[in-house]
């Protein structure tokens, strides 16, 4: 599903060069649930940015879902992000002026889908995270856990191949955090690949594979659970 | 607390020099434009005879001898010689004066100098106290001089300089057209913006250079240079009569009559006097139309005759709206300025400052910039007024027609504070409404 080969990301500040990712290589199978841990400054965020095509990289190669996405233009990267990737952020990143419906709607608009199809997808995704009764609420009217669920719905509505989650439970209390993890597990069970950055070892352990980043390099910790390579029957019906 | 807030405001200005400069310039522009046009309106619309505008009344009657007069909205604006004479003689009002303008040739005492033409006004002596005319040397002639008439004159400061080298000209003589006049008074520099005594012909014009008794009109065969209206053509044989008789018979309306009536009772008394005068004249075959006597106070007459050009009012109104728009447009700049330091505000709030304190602190900053911008705006308005003055003309002594006076400076200050408030209230409210915690975590 995802293959990074000796990817190097360099930040230049004046005369100083920082290699945030050094010769970073990673392979993730379709349907895998991978967690990534690491200390501050280890390159976790950079990895997310690169793998999510939020940022370009200098050296190496990156294949995503069979496509070489190493040197894409801004517009092409946007399209791939929109169609293949879904993001879940630590601080939810919901748009405060929009209600739940409109928030989930945002990525669908960029895909130029028709109004009826968008409505169906949104309502389905919001139902999936259990917030159908809050369709017209604003983020300010929701708890942290509910907001993150909306963010997940936003991802689900687009039916991506890969979900990148950046400390999705970092701003939540343990009760809500567990709920979110349950939802993520469910989503993964239906066939979506998930790569999650986290600090929480309990959550990290729920993955198929734990990886560790240090100094911009990958350290493979252990395979936790056996992971079958093909699970077509649990793919969600998607377009 | 105010001083503290002012210090904070100053520090904030220094930290964002570009934004602050733009804000100040924006306010300066708004205040400058509005002060310019409001001052222009104020100069033209303010009371032209402070202290006397309540007691001075302008007299009009409808002596028009034909059924259709060219005056749509009321009686003719001026009176005929014979009617004015009668009313002046009657002694009913405490003070009264009638006048009309002309132009005559002045022959300087030094025969070698070239004669020149000057504007002259023929008046009665009450004119001077009624219109608060300021004297430098000497004073008005007395009423007996009006009756004869005596060859006395009051001259302007500029004319005095020209004829007598600036020294006291009282007692000296000069020739006006065909006879000599003795100077009894020299006026101070006098340039009222609105000449209350001549609102019909040229209210914004300059005062005349020479004032002589009204009764000289006949003996000197003076032709008025103001406006004249008549409904009556001369009859055969009239051309050969003496000028003064022609004046009386002629029914030409060319004189403006003002009376001083200190209270309402005397106004009523004068009005009934006019009514009986008109009734008498009707019996003599004059005043054929419906009586329409008007006794109008100064300020009402100003409004009725539209002495203040309507465009001046329009520009004043538009410029005030301009100020509002200019201030609105500064809201974005203030927002940018305030919210850039939201974290500092967060700290202050965490340290115990209430929302009101923060609001006041920022409002002080807005008003400080308002005042700074306003001062700059006042300077701009001086430039604007200078441009207006080029068209309206300076006075003979170089005193500009439009000038900023104390009330207008206060108005400018009020406008600056208003602009600061309009531009700043919403941003100040925004910054103080933010919960302290939000910006404390800012990275």
């Amino acid at each position, binding site marked *: 599903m995802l293959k990074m080969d000796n990817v190097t990301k360099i930040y230049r500040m004046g005369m100083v060069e920082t290699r945030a990712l050094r010769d970073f290589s990673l392979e993730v199978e379709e349907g895998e649930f991978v967690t990534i841990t690491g200390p501050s400054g280890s390159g976790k*965020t950079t990895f997310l*940015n690169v793998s*999510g095509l*939020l*940022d370009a990289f200098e050296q190496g190669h990156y294949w995503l879902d069979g496509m070489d996405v190493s040197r894409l233009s*801004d*517009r092409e990267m*946007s*399209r791939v*992000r*929109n169609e293949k990737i879904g*993001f879940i*952020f630590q601080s939810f*990143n919901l748009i405060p*002026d*929009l*209600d739940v419906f*409109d928030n989930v709607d*945002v990525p669908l*608009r*960029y*895909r130029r889908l028709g109004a009826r199809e968008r409505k169906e997808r949104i309502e389905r995704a919001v139902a999936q995270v259990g917030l159908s009764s809050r369709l017209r609420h*604003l983020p300010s009217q929701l708890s942290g856990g509910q907001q993150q669920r909306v963010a997940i719905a936003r991802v689900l509505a687009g039916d991506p191949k890969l979900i990148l989650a*950046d400390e999705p439970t970092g701003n939540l209390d343990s009760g809500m955090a567990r709920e979110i993890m349950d939802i993520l597990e469910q989503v993964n069970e239906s066939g979506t690949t998930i790569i999650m950055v986290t600090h929480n070892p309990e959550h990290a352990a729920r993955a198929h594979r734990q990886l560790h980043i240090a100094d911009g390099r990958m350290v493979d910790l252990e395979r936790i659970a056996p992971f079958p390579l093909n699970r077509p029957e649990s793919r969600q019906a998607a377009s | 607390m105010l001083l503290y807030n002012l210090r904070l405001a100053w520090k904030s200005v220094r930290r964002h020099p570009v934004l602050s400069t733009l804000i100040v310039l*924006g306010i300066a522009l708004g205040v400058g*434009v509005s002060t310019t046009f409001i001052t222009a309106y104020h100069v033209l619309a303010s009371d032209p005879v402070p202290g006397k505008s309540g007691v001075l009344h302008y007299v009009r009657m409808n002596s028009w*001898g*034909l059924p*259709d007069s*060219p005056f749509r909205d009321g009686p003719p604006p001026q009176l005929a010689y014979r009617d004015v004479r009668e009313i002046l003689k009657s002694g009913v009002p405490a003070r009264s004066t009638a006048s009309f303008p002309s*132009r005559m*040739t002045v*022959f300087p005492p030094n025969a070698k100098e070239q004669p*020149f033409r000057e504007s002259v006004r023929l008046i009665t002596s009450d004119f001077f106290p009624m219109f608060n005319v300021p004297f430098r040397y000497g004073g008005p002639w007395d009423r007996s001089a009006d009756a004869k008439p005596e060859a006395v004159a009051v001259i302007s400061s500029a004319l005095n300089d020209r004829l007598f080298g600036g020294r006291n000209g009282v007692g000296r003589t000069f020739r006006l057209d*065909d006879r000599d006049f003795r100077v009894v008074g020299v006026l101070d520099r006098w340039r009222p913006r609105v000449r209350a005594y001549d609102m019909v012909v040229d209210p914004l014009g300059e005062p005349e250079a020479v004032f002589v008794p009204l009764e000289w009109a006949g003996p000197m065969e003076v*032709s008025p240079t103001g406006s004249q209206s008549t409904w009556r*053509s*001369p009859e*055969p044989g009239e*051309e050969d009569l003496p000028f003064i008789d022609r004046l009386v018979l002629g029914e030409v309306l060319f004189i403006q009559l003002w009376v001083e009536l200190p209270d309402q009772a005397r106004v009523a008394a004068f009005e009934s006097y006019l009514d009986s005068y008109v009734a008498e004249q009707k019996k003599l075959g004059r005043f054929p139309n419906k009586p329409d006597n008007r006794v109008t106070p100064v300020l009402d007459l100003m409004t009725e005759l539209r002495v203040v*050009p*309507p465009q001046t*009012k*329009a*520009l004043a*109104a538009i*410029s005030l709206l*301009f100020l509002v*728009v*200019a201030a609105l*447009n*500064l809201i*974005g*700049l203030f927002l*940018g300025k305030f*919210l850039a330091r939201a974290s500092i505000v967060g700290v202050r709030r965490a340290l115990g400052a209430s929302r009101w304190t923060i609001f006041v602190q920022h409002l002080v900053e807005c008003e400080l910039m308002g005042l700074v911008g306003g001062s700059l705006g006042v300077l701009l308005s001086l430039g604007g007024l200078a441009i207006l003055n080029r*068209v309206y003309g300076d006075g003979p002594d170089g005193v500009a027609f439009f000038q900023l006076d104390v009330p207008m400076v206060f108005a400018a200050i009020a406008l600056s504070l208003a602009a600061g408030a309009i531009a700043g209230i*919403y941003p100040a409210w925004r910054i103080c409404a933010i919960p302290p915690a939000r910006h404390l975590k*800012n*990275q």
Partner: protein
Amino acid sequence: MEFGPIFRSLLRNRARVVVIVAEVALTLAIVANCMSLILDTRAQLARESGFDDDHMVLVRSNPFAESLNEEEVLNQLVDSDLRTLRALPGVRAVSNTSLEPWGQGGSITSVRLPGTRGEPLRAQFYSADPSIFDTLGIRVVQGRGFTREELEHGADAGPTETLPVVISKTLADVAFPDGKAVGRELAFADESQRLLVVGLIDRFYKPLGAAADRVMLTPGRTVGFDYGSSYLVRTEGDPGAMIPRMEKALLGAEKGRFLRLRTVPEMREEFHGRDRLLVASLNGVMALLVLVTSLGIVGLTSFSVAERRRQIGTRRALGADKGDIVRHFLLENWMVTSLGVVLGAALAYALNFGMVTWVSGARLSVPVVAVGALGLWLIGIASALGPALRGAQVPPAIATRNV
């Protein structure tokens, strides 16, 4: 296009929307009214007199020497002045007349058809000599001008004699709607004297009360010791350049008088002075207003874009490309500006009503409001372009930065 979500998000940002809408609406209201006043005033300023203004000089002569205080002497002086002026090279025509194009003063009289009652007609009334038409540069289109005999006789005319007059076509059309004016008679409103129409001119405009384009010219000398006399001189070239020579020649002929020579263009400038100032002031205020408002929109939009950096990053992360971001902000701005323009049009009419009723102004016409609305609409959108483009540059990676 995401009208729905943008509209709903605008509803939650009421303060910012209200400010921009108020800015645009007020600006349109003021600009439309200013424009209206300007057009109205300029229409008046543009009216032509119909004369050859650019080549005319007005000469006023006021005698002061006692030797001149005699009718015959003054008459001879007028004739001599006319000869002196005509003899100067560069002078095309001279006329002795009381008509002062673009002067502050003038005279109006009332006339009627003899024997009729009712409202008299008002017209300007001036004396002139036969060369007035050449001097003004107008033609007598029907009938004839004046003869020398009529001019000479003018001074001795009795008060009840019929005066010959040349009138303007506008007056003729009102007095004689059947089109036959020449040869007919008018009378002064008090029926004291008759006026025989001998000719018509088709061009005349001198702003004076309600009779700006109606005139009656009668042959006669304009002369007197008190009022002096005036001459209109038509020159070949630049009239200003001729003035010193004319003054010298006239003073050379007679020193006991004051002369004032002004070019007609100069008089027109002075006559229009206040109106021109008004137009200039209005133009200035309008330009400043538009500038200030567009800067204000730029400022507020920049601020609101900067405030939403995180949101922009998130949208980008969700798949928006730069074009989508620009379109989003432009669309948002378009909606607000459009609302402002619609309100502004309504406000313009309200303001106009207020101005016309209590202050002064010209009625608004639809084209003025439409042009103003379109212009402001374009400016509003253009002002948002810069901040929108800057917003599009926000990198997607901002979304993953931690708060």
